[in-house]
């Protein structure tokens, strides 16, 4: 039963991803992206990584998609359809992409599978301890670097998007 659920989620994720990159209405593309990301969160729930699933829903589905939708509303006329990509570009991209998928799948077929492990349960306490741990298998250094990166991104986003006096202003 859960196996079928996984294949259902996987198929819907692929369909929504394909729609997100081919839809000619830009707002719909963003909503298809949202569905695809929510499917990813469902996958994380299935695999028992609840914290990661929650972060996926909050940051991706809640944060980034809303940001993308706001940027669409501020920069595009959503009634217009996007123009179709020209045939040559489309054909070359499709050939490249299908070739890439075939090559990677061929390489994957030559390797044996692992089995998922049920022994390790990841609870919130382990996540907190690992994020604050500076000994072996601790992640305090990337945690701090990420915090500085987020601060820098926040400041730079404000500075770049701030209205400056240009000659277009009245």
């Amino acid at each position, binding site marked *: 039963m859960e196996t079928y659920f996984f294949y259902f989620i*996987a198929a819907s994720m692929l369909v929504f991803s394909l729609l997100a990159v081919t839809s000619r209405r830009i707002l719909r593309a963003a909503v298809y992206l949202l569905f695809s990301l929510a499917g*990813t969160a469902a996958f994380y729930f299935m695999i*028992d990584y609840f914290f990661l699933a929650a972060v996926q829903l909050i940051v991706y589905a809640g944060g980034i998609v809303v940001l993308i939708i706001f940027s669409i509303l501020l920069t595009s006329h959503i009634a217009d359809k996007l123009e179709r990509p020209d045939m040559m570009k489309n054909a070359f991209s499709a050939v490249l992409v299908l070739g890439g998928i075939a090559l990677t799948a061929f390489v994957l077929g030559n390797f044996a599978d692992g089995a998922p492990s049920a022994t390790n349960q990841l609870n919130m306490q382990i996540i907190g301890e690992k*994020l604050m741990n500076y000994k072996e298998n601790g992640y305090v250094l990337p945690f701090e670097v990420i915090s500085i990166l*987020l601060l820098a*991104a926040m400041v730079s*986003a404000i500075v770049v*998007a701030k209205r400056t006096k240009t000659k277009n202003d009245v």
Partner: protein
Amino acid sequence: MMFENIPLNHILILTISMFFIGVYGFLTRKNLVTVLISVELMLNAVNINFVAFDKYLHPGTFEGHFFSLFVIAIAAAEAAVAIAIFFNLYRNIRSIDVESVDKMKY
């Protein structure tokens, strides 16, 4: 454990298909926001890959889990800066098409 019937290869096929769908969008789209959507799809596929490898091949260490957390944080920062740049571009040249942003060159 309800996941043991699914081979790792099937998850990897899902992620590489999703990644290359993102590459297709990156190559064919003209609007910068849709290009950003494609990039997010690619990052998402890589995240699933990390988690699958963590669960199947290196159980107990949770390395892929934490790597995915950091990738999500970096994706959020990247999206914020990219969209700030789009706003600035739109304000200056009234367009966010890929072919019309050659004014960023010096």
